[in-house]
């Protein structure tokens, strides 16, 4: 039993009482199990992007959410998410993205003849990205990288939940109050004076 499912059932038991849980066990169990099983990330492979395109996409994503003392978009496998998205929910924009990448490369090569973007030093990559950060291609890369960091791992990114860890999101099926710092010591709702009263 996965930890997510176990803690969900424990919390549910506390919240709902054993009677309800027994009554609804099959449904909830199925839902939690389904969620747990689908959490397994697919094997990393590319369906849309060529190896060269993937190297650039990974390099760009790696500067959008860089790796420091914690994992970034590279470790999250954002490029695999993007590849899947271009064949999936974002497929309608595939040509626009690939065309945008081609123009991106043309501009990069014009500035740095003979160099590849993915192979150039990070400082140069960042400098160049700053010069194109308002282009639709960069904006789309930023959008897809963020989703590749934070969407469910079953879509190929957010490997081992590294994106969720970064933003402090716990993927659980149930919580109990207090939920945060400020509701811990809430004294209760104090009613207002009724209309007509001082």
């Amino acid at each position, binding site marked *: 039993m996965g930890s997510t499912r176990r803690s*969900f059932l424990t*919390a*549910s038991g506390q*919240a*709902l009482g054993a009677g*309800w849980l027994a009554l*609804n066990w099959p*449904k*909830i169990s*199925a*839902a939690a199990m*389904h*969620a747990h099983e*689908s959490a397994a990330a697919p094997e990393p492979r590319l369906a849309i992007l060529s190896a060269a395109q993937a190297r650039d996409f990974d390099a760009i994503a790696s*500067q*959008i*959410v*860089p790796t*420091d003392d914690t994992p*970034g978009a590279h470790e999250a496998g954002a490029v695999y998410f993007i590849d899947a998205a271009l064949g999936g*929910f974002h497929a*309608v*924009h595939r040509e626009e993205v690939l065309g945008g990448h081609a123009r991106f490369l043309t501009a990069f090569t014009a500035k740095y003849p003979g160099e590849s973007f993915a192979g150039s030093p990070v400082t140069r990559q*960042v400098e160049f*990205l700053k010069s194109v*950060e308002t282009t639709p291609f960069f904006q789309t890369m*930023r*959008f897809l*990288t*963020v*989703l590749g*960091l*934070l*969407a*469910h791992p079953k*879509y190929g990114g957010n490997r081992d939940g590294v994106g*969720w860890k*970064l*933003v*402090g*999101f716990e*993927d*659980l*099926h*149930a*919580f*109990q*109050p207090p*939920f*945060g*710092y*400020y*509701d811990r010591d*809430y004294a209760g*709702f104090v*009613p*207002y*004076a*009724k*209309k007509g009263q001082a």
Partner: protein
Amino acid sequence: MSARTYKPSEQVDFAIVGSGASGGVLARELSQAGFSVVVLEQGPRLGPSDFEHDELKHWFANGITNEPVRNPQTFRADPAAKATRVLDIPALMYARLVGGSSVHYTANFWRFHEIDFHERSVLGAIAGTGFADWPIEYADLEPYYTKVEWEIGVSGLAYASPFDPPRTKPYPMPPMPVKSSGVLLERGGRKLGLHPFPAPLAIASQPFRGRPACVHCGFCEGYGCEVMAKSSTLYNMIPEAEATGRCEVRAESYVFRVDTDKRGRATGVAYFGRDKREHFQHAKAVVLAANGAETARLLLNSANAKSPDGLANSSGYVGKYLMFNAGSATGASFEHELNEYKSVQVTRIIHDFYDADPRRGFYGGGGIDARIDGAPAWWAAINNPPDASWGAAYKQVLRDFPKSLISVGHCTSLPVETNSVTIDPELKDAWGVPAMRATYLDHKDDLATAAFMQDRAVEILDAAGAKKIWRVPIVPQTVGVHLLGTCRMGNDPKSSVVDKYHRTHDVRNLFLCDGGSFVTSGRGQPTMTIQALAFRAADHIAQFARRNEI
């Protein structure tokens, strides 16, 4: 449970199109009243085990809503321009499954206030708009608001807000436990002399009518509830209708036309079944509850020789006066963790700015809440602080997610005639049915109201001790999830589509009841009123049927 089924060739008492917030209520009320009912729902029937915590699917990929490939739309802001096809998020969005948008709603359940029904008389005309009074008053609807609270299931604290309209009963369940966003909204609001109060929500805070209490998973807005705690018609009205043995809910049945006979009476509805073939359900009366976009489209697509501009459209107002509710979003982060992704979206709201005030120089009013609005990807991609959008600084910003909230302003929209649902002259959907064209540009007063509400939110968040506050830019809306006003209710057949009992002025046995019936927009939380209208409409429709007045 094997519910009653009917053959399309059997003439049932009522064919209801749509199984959502209003269709579910009408189905349950009319079948419990003894009538035979077939509900036709274009979407599939899903249940708790089909719903999942998947932000990409629900917030970015139209997982349970209409979507632009199968249900394409065009959009334009300028009524003189050619509309362009929408590629990502539908312009007119609704959940497309049994239970309709009551499955994916956030479940904020505010009653309208008394002023909402006669604001035009109080404030006067507003040039360039169809601003009008409703043909009913709050008192007409109050018993049905109470019915929604007790039969749909709403949690809240009665009399907590000094601005609340009169009520005959308290809520059946206590409010949901407060979250940190609620504590902070309350702290900031009270400091400024405002009156924050516990948010009424159509979510079970304790076991209710056979459904369990909320387990605070946090996935309400845009999602189906995995534990049946959200009071969706999928979990209350629909099964109760089926339990009468007189109601069939026919999923994956896409109605595209209402037919009428020589006398101009509706004979039933033509639909594509799950076999993709055309069928015709015969009915003594037809009720359209397909939402403010699809009901209007269906009437327009049902044009015939006798009604060349669309069925029930002698007024010319079918599809017009579309209202989305304007809105604002204001971000803030605090010193400590809030963890807003946990539990229901909203636990405190402020109604001090509900009423319009002519001294502001523009029309409008609304409410303010605090939440996170979506799980982390939406926040990080769309609502994050403006300091950085990529790079090392952005990564630092992302770490603030647990300490952040978004305060949402929920505002009025004025009825503007050019804001509309019409039929696109070229585009067709996956079944070959002419697609809908949305035309929408917020009235300048709507944008001014949203900006006003954002200013108030900034003050409240500052008073609450926010470390950082940011304004999400207010821009004209291109997507609406509140689909209101397109078949407005009124006493005059020349200026409205349905009468105060939801009967179309033109077709005696055709009724419309959904957000389209609204005359004004309210303050941004329409479902409570849609359902109160549906309970009231069902009462009257049942009486008409019994008296042979349909």
